[in-house]
């Protein structure tokens, strides 16, 4: 039995008392691609961070080739020949590919950059990938796929004493087109044949089936299965990944319920890229790339009072852009939107709020919360005007209102004055929801929620579903954007499927199956 290039045994990690990873063991072998799968919040990122030295485990050990190792910083892991390619690439936008590849380890003599050696190293790395990229172009002008190649080349060029031995990729294809994905896979196969151990984290099970040799499945921070890919075809992985209690419950409206009047009618909506990337013409949730995602080409749908409609599709299909265009956070280039029978053309989110449309963005920390401010301040942000007279906030009413919603949504917080960043992800999300529920003027008629339970623990998840269903029952129209199909199935009365900027299908009732959705999501 050969030793694993990198082995992690019995890893446990806690964040602020919450167990993110419980007793997980994984072995990465040289010359093999190991897939890591699991739902959002299953602990994949945490495990990758441990393997890449970005986080020390609270318990458990790491070993390389059978020898125990300890990483205190990512730099230690780099020196041992381990590199992680993050979802958000860590390139300096204004630097050329060459400059990025040698970044932090520039060949130099007496502190003067050695241009020739730099060039040679960058070329070697790019050639090693079999990629063709103009090494002098600033990476901000490269496509996302090319940037990813630069990132991998950077890992390959790393001057570790033993060379690169382990490559960790976090959702590398989430932002790539099918064609680009194939190209990436071809490179990875080459790297595998050179004896690299590769950890490949992905949501896309079909890819894993084609590419990987081994697979490990995580759920709720624990190892729930794994082995060779032959033993685990995609059909067997899904039940392992989503085997949570939730899928057995449903939050859908009862079949006999008739949706109310039409609230929102969207007809052939389209968006375009912003003219200047640095202007805040659109608020991109920071998790998503600033370029590369598809803009909305054509989206038409209807949202009625009392229903929860899900907008599903792969990352980059243009789902968030539909929401941003609807609330006026992003310019639209075509199409009409009718709100309660009247044309609706918001110039900024302010117009949407005044029309009774609420929006919960995908990335809480970047676009929703003021992390250092209290639960109270974050909860009353939208309704503040209504809690004030002549501009002076009625503090007693503000506190009472906050208490009321903290209780109603069961937000677990030491006090309403606690900074919201100290709360768990689930409770933070409830605060953002509460912001829109606090009696507003005008009352909320449409709520758009982008990824309602991203980074939310299992318990809070069901409570959030309860809240959204209650809201719909009280005649609000709820539009959910989600990457979590289990969530979409359990919660939504109707699903709209997006692909490459278009709404390509609508599924209701019995048609709302994972297979139907998946077949619409992926171009055939």
């Amino acid at each position, binding site marked *: 039995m050969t030793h694993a290039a990198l082995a992690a045994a019995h890893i446990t990690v806690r964040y602020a008392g919450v167990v993110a990873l419980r007793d997980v063991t994984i072995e990465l072998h040289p010359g093999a691609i190991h897939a890591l799968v699991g739902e959002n919040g299953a602990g994949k990122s945490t495990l990758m961070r441990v393997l890449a030295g970005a986080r020390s485990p609270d318990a458990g050990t790491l070993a390389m080739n059978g020898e125990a190792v300890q990483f205190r910083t990512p730099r230690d892991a780099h020196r041992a020949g381990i590199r992680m390619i993050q979802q958000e690439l860590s390139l300096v936008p204004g630097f050329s590919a060459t400059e990025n590849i040698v970044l932090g380890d520039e060949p130099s003599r007496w502190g003067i950059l050695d241009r020739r050696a730099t060039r040679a190293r960058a070329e070697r790395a790019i050639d090693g990938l079999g990629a063709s990229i103009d090494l002098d172009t600033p990476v901000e002008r490269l496509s996302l796929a090319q940037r990813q190649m630069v990132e991998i080349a950077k890992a390959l060029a790393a001057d570790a004493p033993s060379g690169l031995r382990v490559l960790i990729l976090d959702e590398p294809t989430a932002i790539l087109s099918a064609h680009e994905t194939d190209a990436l896979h071809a490179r990875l196969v080459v790297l595998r044949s050179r004896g690299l151990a590769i950890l490949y984290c992905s949501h896309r099970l079909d890819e894993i089936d084609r590419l990987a040799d081994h697979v490990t499945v995580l759920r709720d921070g624990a190892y729930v299965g794994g082995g060779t890919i032959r033993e685990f075809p995609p059909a067997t992985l899904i039940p392992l990944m989503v085997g949570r209690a939730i899928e057995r419950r449903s939050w859908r409206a009862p079949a006999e319920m008739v949706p109310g009047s039409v609230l929102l009618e969207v007809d052939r909506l389209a968006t375009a890229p912003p003219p200047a990337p640095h202007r805040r013409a659109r608020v991109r949730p920071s998790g998503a790339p600033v370029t590369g995602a598809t803009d909305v080409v054509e989206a038409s749908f209807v949202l009625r009072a009392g229903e929860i409609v899900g907008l599903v599709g792969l990352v980059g299909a243009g789902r968030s852009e539909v929401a941003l265009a609807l609330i006026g956070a992003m310019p639209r280039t075509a199409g009409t939107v009718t709100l309660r029978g009247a044309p609706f053309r918001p110039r900024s989110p302010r117009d949407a709020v005044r029309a009774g449309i609420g929006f919960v963005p995908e990335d809480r920390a970047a676009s*929703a919360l*003021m992390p250092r401010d209290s639960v109270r301040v974050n909860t009353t942000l939208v309704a503040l005007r209504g809690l004030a007279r002549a501009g002076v*906030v009625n503090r007693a009413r503000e506190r009472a209102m906050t208490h009321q919603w903290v209780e109603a949504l069961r937000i677990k917080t030491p006090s309403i004055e606690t900074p919201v960043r100290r709360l768990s992800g689930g409770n933070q999300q409830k605060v953002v929801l509460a912001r829109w529920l606090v009696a507003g003027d005008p009352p909320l008629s449409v709520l758009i929620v982008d990824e309602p339970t991203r980074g939310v623990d299992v318990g809070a998840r069901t409570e959030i579903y309860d809240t959204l269903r209650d809201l719909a029952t009280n005649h609000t129209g709820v539009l959910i954007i989600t990457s979590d199909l289990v969530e979409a199935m359990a919660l939504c009365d109707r699903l709209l499927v997006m692909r490459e900027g278009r709404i390509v299908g609508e599924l209701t009732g019995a048609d709302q199956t994972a297979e139907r959705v998946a077949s619409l999501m992926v171009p055939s």
Partner: protein
Amino acid sequence: MSALAGAFFSLGNLLNVALSIAVIGILGVGMTAVILTGGIDLSVGSGVALSGVVAALAAHAVDSGAATGGSPSLLPVVAALGAALAVGAAGGVFTGVAVARLRAPAFLVTLALLSIERGLAFLFSSGQAVSDLPAGFNWLGQGIVFGVPVPVWLTAACFGVGWFVLARTTWGRWIYAVGGNEAAAWLAGIDTRGVTLGTYVANGLLVGLAGAVLTARLGAAVPNAGLGYELDVIAAVVVGGTALTGGRGSVLGTLAGAVCIGTLDNALNLANVDPYLQRVVVGVVILLAVLGERLRHRGRT
């Protein structure tokens, strides 16, 4: 040493300290709000000079036009104060529009304004002090009410109003929200541009007031008045615990910061410390305050 302490704690000296920080304090209220939005204003020192010069010129213009009988009129006083406030507000509108609407970096816009306003102050005054101001105007800087100098009253009022607006009103909350997370504030329907613009205009009004008070105290408008004040004001704000990144801090902290720096200056003066060394000591104290704040935060996270 005890003689020194006695000198320091005498009522007269304490009022001296208060008077010495009055102008910095008034500016500190506006600067706190600006920094809370995540901005900065480097032009306040020049703004003080320009508004003072324009105020003095306005007083003279009205005076020569109206007063022939010699009886003191209130008109020149109002004209002077109004001119100072208008000049300050105009600077605020300039900065506010550039920052909020055109999204130019506040640092650069106000750096430009620093130069422009200083130049205009010299141009308008031909580089000379403008003196012979109406007595009513000078009262703003030299008057005493209930034993306390008028500038100290004005500063106290500015801090009171500033505290109330920031801590108790929707506008104040929105200032914190814009600085705390502008994208979140915008998506929550807050008029982030309006809030930012309004904050710079309010700050401009305070600059105008500070210019009037300083001019009145000196009894003359001097084109190089307020030189380097921007740094003293920012120091007071930062020592008072307001984060330069925005969203965090209060005018009470700024008051404490201004008092701390003013007291230190005064004590070093009384102790006959070499004035050159005084600057060094003040700098070191600012550094310690800022580092202390960093360490406190690191301890918590």
